[in-house]
């Protein structure tokens, strides 16, 4: 009876098919086509110093030399374009650990003035280059940012003493087809063509110590500028410089009797004027006096006179008035008391009117936009009060977020003279706070966009896994983004089976593959912590201002991940520790004081994340704090987690012997003085037998080992540490082509030092294992031929941070910095500039611990080698293989890929000029690349490539595509749950870039983009229907035959 049996089978198969169909919605898959769609790029500006509204456009300039145009209509605050003005000459900069430069000492082009040329629609900037002291005029097209022309005026031979006293500034005077550029330091005036920037005329020198104001005068056929400044006699002087004139005409010289100009420093003199008909001109000079009074002088060409205006204190920020009247000038001034006063000078008479009443305490911050005056204040929290100039009435208040640093405003669509009674809702208020957050708001307190410009000053970055909240778990204060990730309708999942995935649906799947990370940025100057979501284009998840209380000003903050929390340690005063929830940013616990020895300089506290003991390997790492300023030697304590802060005295185990674990704990100090030389000292932690002086610091340490560089003249230019997690998960051996094994020297406790010295190369000490590559030997021979001339030498030293031993040391001659280093597993990569060959070189060193023959390890055979699990084991140093390669571009930084299980082939990430990132296969940098050709069979089987000194830069391997990261200085990588995928974050001075990488160039665990979703679904459906139909048919046939 086969038919009943077939029927049962068909029912079973149908049930199975239906079960699979039911399970499909819960099966997540990532498609290869998602690659490349989730990279994002954030263009930053840095601290904004100039802003100007021009209709719907917003012109911005920052103190990092960036000029940008944003739209007042965009909701995301993205820039329409951004141009970074480069320095004319390279400046040698100190290099921070890891190869990054110290931003505080980094010079940038200073933007003196930013204007829009209304006729030519050009964004013009007047700049000064600190490297050459030259003045520059730049003109970009408003709509696309194309540079139309650029003129550099070299620094003149003005004596330095004169320049020191002068104001560092400059002015632009715009005419329909001409631009006047005035050097505020020298008083030199250049007239340039607004079309192509060609120099039309250079004005004769003006006898001024400093220029403090420039007024363009356009008389139709005759053009010129009125230059007001500080004369050598200490008097305020005004000159009229006519275009094409033989000399500057002195208009007036005024002496201020009360106070003085120079005694109050610069800027002390301000000039505002309006051109009047019939070649008349009214000037209003204001100067602060010694007392709280305001001095002014009329410098009309027709009827000059002097007067005095009071009483609102020292002038802080003069605001030009736009009242058109003949032979009159007016301005708005903001006093210390916060009052805004309009001062008008007409026919030699002063008039003053109170526009905004005093506000105490006030901010010295005000701005005028058309018929409105905006004044920053903090009476009811940070905010901006808006007054109408005509009647002095308050028309509203815009709420601020933090204490304001800058304030600008404009009217959407532009303000025209006939629209004096403009609608308040069209008023846009742009504020920047002390944390460099740029906020654009409307008068009805609606946020247009927000930009976190403090991301341009990143001190530390952490990439942590994003843990999606469980269903129903409500986290107060969490952004909507997190909630959207957790809740997704079922039909969307069903739909994603049939339809190609959309970016939004793919982002729903991301957390299941570990592709969504939380990027924590610790911004140093502003003491601000910002969490970005790696998906959704880098959406800001939360921000948090770190406390800056009395006595902790200038605190240096550092952060460490502890499970789902981030621990922030502030060094200042007696120290402070805060635990925050990574997802929400909420404070979980805090330790108000760490008991540091005051006064604690920034380098007195050492932090070491210590992995948990073997008994509880899943617990988060502890943080070892070492106070090096203690008079009786180093003292240490642990911070286990937020629970320890909530308990008394730092936790349940703190201070006990058990907290040290079953393995000895070591730490080290690395001294790299700027005068040269470096020393490494290693310490072992122990609990003293006697009671410690401070119960908070129960542990002490003893010196275990010490090493120092052989020559005291060696200056450490770069250091590199390996990633401990990476070293622990790395394969322990490297297979060769014939089945043999090379055992890697995997020591997570290494440090690589790059030091330079300008001395003749001397033989290394016998205790050090020194090898030199061929290029270095050639350089030494050539150096010897130069008759003992000093050559700059680079030394690369590998040291053990537990035992303090020097493991390897190599030297290169004719080398200049900057040196970039990266230590990955048993692989050290470093780049430098070979000043003799004029090229960028990359050194590659791999360390091996031994060799196992192809038959040396089998089912019944074991190799005879000593297992090194301790830094004190093994009397022999590792075997090092070294090779040098050439790279065609200057290298900015180095990184490496990181995958979850370390199976995927490693790749090197090279950040090179002008801010691109290259994915370079590790095989290209293998020191074992054979130089002898043809390759042997085993070399071919291993996949070794013949040695070629030049490393290729293939465009498909440039992961930044067409993005350029200005000032690229750091690369951070994080693994995802997919072995084929690495997440990369590139951090530059003014750019952030995040993307996914496939180090093996093949997303082997992703579905291909040619995966036919429709066909698979149809086949599944037809199979289910077919099986059901055949089951029915078989049943009917069996019935018929039974009746036959």
């Amino acid at each position, binding site marked *: 009876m086969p038919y009943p049996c077939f029927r049962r089978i068909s029912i079973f198969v149908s049930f199975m098919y239906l079960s699979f169909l039911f399970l499909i919605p819960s099966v997540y898959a990532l498609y290869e086509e998602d690659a490349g769609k989730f990279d994002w790029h954030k263009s930053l500006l840095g601290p904004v110093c100039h802003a100007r509204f021009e209709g719907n456009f917003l012109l911005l300039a920052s103190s990092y030399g960036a000029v940008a145009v944003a739209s007042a209509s965009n909701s995301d605050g993205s820039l329409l374009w951004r141009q970074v003005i480069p320095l004319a000459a390279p400046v040698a900069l100190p290099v921070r650990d890891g190869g990054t430069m110290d931003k505080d000492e980094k010079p940038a082009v200073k933007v003196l003035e930013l204007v829009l040329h209304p006729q030519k629609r050009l964004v013009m900037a007047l700049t000064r280059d600190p490297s050459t002291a030259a003045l520059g005029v730049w003109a970009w097209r408003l709509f696309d940012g194309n540079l139309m022309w650029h003129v550099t005026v070299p620094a003149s031979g003005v004596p330095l003493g004169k320049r020191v006293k002068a104001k560092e500034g400059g002015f632009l005077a715009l005419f329909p087809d001409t631009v006047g550029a005035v050097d505020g330091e020298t008083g030199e005036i250049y007239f340039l063509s607004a079309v192509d920037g060609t120099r039309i005329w250079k004005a004769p020198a003006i006898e001024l110590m400093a220029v403090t104001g420039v007024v363009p005068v356009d008389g139709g056929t005759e053009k010129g500028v009125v230059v007001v400044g500080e004369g050598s006699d200490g008097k305020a002087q005004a000159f009229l410089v006519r275009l094409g004139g033989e000399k500057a005409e002195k208009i007036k010289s005024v002496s201020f009797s009360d106070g003085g100009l120079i005694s109050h420093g610069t800027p002390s003199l301000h000039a505002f004027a309006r051109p009047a008909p019939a070649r008349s001109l009214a000037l209003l000079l204001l100067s602060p006096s010694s007392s709280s009074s305001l001095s002014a002088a009329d410098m009309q060409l027709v009827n000059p006179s002097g007067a005095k205006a009071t009483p609102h204190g020292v002038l802080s920020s003069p605001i030009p008035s736009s009242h058109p009247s003949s032979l009159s000038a007016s301005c708005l001034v903001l006093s210390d008391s916060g009052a805004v006063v309009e001062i008008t000078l007409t026919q030699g008479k002063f008039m003053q009117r109170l526009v905004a009443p005093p506000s105490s305490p006030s901010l010295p911050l005000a701005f005028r936009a058309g018929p409105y005056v905006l004044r920053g204040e903090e009476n009811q929290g940070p905010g901006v009060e808006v007054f109408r100039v005509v009647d002095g009435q308050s028309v509203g208040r815009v709420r601020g977020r933090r204490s304001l640093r800058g304030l600008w405003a404009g009217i959407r669509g532009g303000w025209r003279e006939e629209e004096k009674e403009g609608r308040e809702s069209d008023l846009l208020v742009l504020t920047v706070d002390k944390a460099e957050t740029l906020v654009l708001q409307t008068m009805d307190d609606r946020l247009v966009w927000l930009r976190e410009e403090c991301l341009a000053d990143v001190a*530390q970055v952490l990439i942590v896994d994003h843990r999606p909240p469980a269903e129903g778990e409500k986290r107060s204060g969490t952004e909507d983004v997190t909630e959207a990730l957790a809740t997704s309708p079922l039909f969307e999942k069903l739909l994603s089976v049939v339809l190609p995935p959309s970016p939004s649906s793919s982002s729903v799947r991301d957390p299941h593959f570990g592709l969504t990370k939380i990027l924590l940025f610790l911004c140093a100057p502003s003491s601000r912590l910002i969490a970005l979501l790696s998906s959704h284009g880098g959406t800001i998840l939360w921000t948090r201002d770190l406390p800056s209380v009395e006595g902790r000003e200038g605190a240096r903050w*550092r*952060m*460490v991940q502890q499970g789902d929390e981030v621990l922030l340690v502030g060094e200042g005063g007696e120290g402070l520790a805060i635990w925050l929830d990574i997802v929400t940013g909420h404070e979980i616990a805090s330790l108000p004081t760490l008991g540091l020895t005051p006064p604690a300089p920034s380098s007195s506290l*050492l*932090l*070491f*994340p*210590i*992995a948990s003991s073997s008994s509880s390997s899943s617990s988060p790492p502890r943080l*070892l704090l070492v106070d090096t300023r203690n008079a009786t030697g180093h003292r240490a304590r642990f911070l286990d987690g937020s629970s320890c802060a909530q308990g008394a005295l730092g936790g349940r185990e703190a201070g006990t012997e058990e907290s040290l*674990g079953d*393995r*000895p*704990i*070591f*730490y*080290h100090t*690395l001294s790299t003085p700027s005068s040269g030389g470096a020393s490494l000292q290693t310490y072992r932690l122990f609990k003293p037998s006697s009671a410690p002086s401070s119960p908070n610091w129960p542990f002490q340490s003893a010196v275990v080992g010490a090493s120092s560089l052989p020559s005291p003249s060696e200056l450490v230019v770069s250091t590199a*540490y*390996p*990633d*401990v997690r990476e*070293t*622990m*998960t*790395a*394969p*322990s*051996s490297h*297979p*060769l082509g*014939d*089945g*043999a*094994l090379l*055992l*890697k020297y*995997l020591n*997570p*406790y290494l440090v690589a030092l790059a030091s330079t010295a300008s001395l003749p190369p001397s033989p290394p000490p016998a205790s050090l294992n020194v090898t030199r590559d061929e290029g270095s030997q050639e350089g030494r021979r050539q150096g010897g031929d130069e008759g003992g001339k000093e050559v700059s030498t680079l030394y690369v030293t590998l040291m053990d*941070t*537990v035992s303090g031993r020097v493991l390897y040391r190599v030297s290169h001659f004719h080398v200049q910095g900057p040196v970039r280093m990266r230590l990955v597993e048993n692989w050290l990569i470093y780049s430098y500039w070979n000043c003799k060959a004029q090229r960028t070189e990359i050194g590659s060193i791999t360390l091996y611990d031994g060799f*196992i*023959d*192809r*038959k*040396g*390890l*089998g*089912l019944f055979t*074991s*190799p005879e080698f000593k*297992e090194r*699990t*301790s*830094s*004190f*084991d093994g009397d022999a140093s590792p075997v090092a293989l070294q090779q040098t390669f050439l790279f065609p571009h200057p290298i900015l930084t180095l990184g490496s890929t990181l995958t979850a299980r370390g199976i995927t082939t490693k790749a090197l990430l090279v950040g090179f000029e002008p801010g691109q990132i290259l994915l370079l296969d590790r095989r290209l940098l293998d020191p074992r690349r054979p130089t002898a050709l043809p390759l042997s069979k085993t070399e071919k089987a291993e996949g070794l490539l013949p040695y070629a000194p030049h490393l290729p830069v293939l465009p498909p391997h440039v992961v930044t595509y067409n993005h350029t990261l200005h000032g690229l200085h750091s690369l951070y990588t994080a693994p995802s749950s997919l072995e084929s995928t690495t997440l990369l974050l590139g951090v530059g001075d003014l750019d952030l870039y995040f993307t996914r990488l496939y180090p093996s160039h093949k997303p082997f665990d992703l579905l291909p983009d040619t995966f036919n979703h429709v066909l698979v679904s149809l086949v599944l459906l037809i199979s289910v229907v077919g099986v059901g139909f055949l089951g029915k048919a078989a049943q009917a046939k069996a019935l018929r035959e039974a009746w036959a």
Partner: protein
Amino acid sequence: MYTDWNFCSVGASSSSLTQAVEKPLASYHEVHEGLASRQVHEARTGKVTNEEMTLERQLKQKVAMDIAQTPAKALAMQGFMMYMTGSSVSIISIMVVGMSLLNSAQALAAVNQRFERVADGHISLILPKLIYVALNCVFLGMGLYKCSSLGLLPSTAVDFISRLPSTAYRAEVSSVPV
């Protein structure tokens, strides 16, 4: 089908039958048919002479040796196929190697069944079976060698990396400063 009349017409003269059987290079089928006919005859008549028994054992011995040498005939062809498949892992090479190994394993597992026809308990099949097993082992060895040349056999140190001690453990605990 063997009939009585057909055999009886020959059985009238036993000497002619003996001569016919004693031809040394009789074909297998001829011998088999003769033996079968004779066995039928002997079963009916109940008379089997010693010479006939000896002859029968010799014949069975020859047949057993023929069976034992059967793998040798395919050895060259199999080797040629393995050589032609190359040293890269592909569907063809996997099929050839797989068939080689499978056939050898099946033959080795069914040695007794293969010699069942000639196993009457009176002749010794040890030598044919040994030859048969040896030849199949050669077959198997060829397959394994091919596997090894394809890199499918764990024969080198690379295949036993898991026996190396883990490097994750360190006797000391330290870290990188933050």
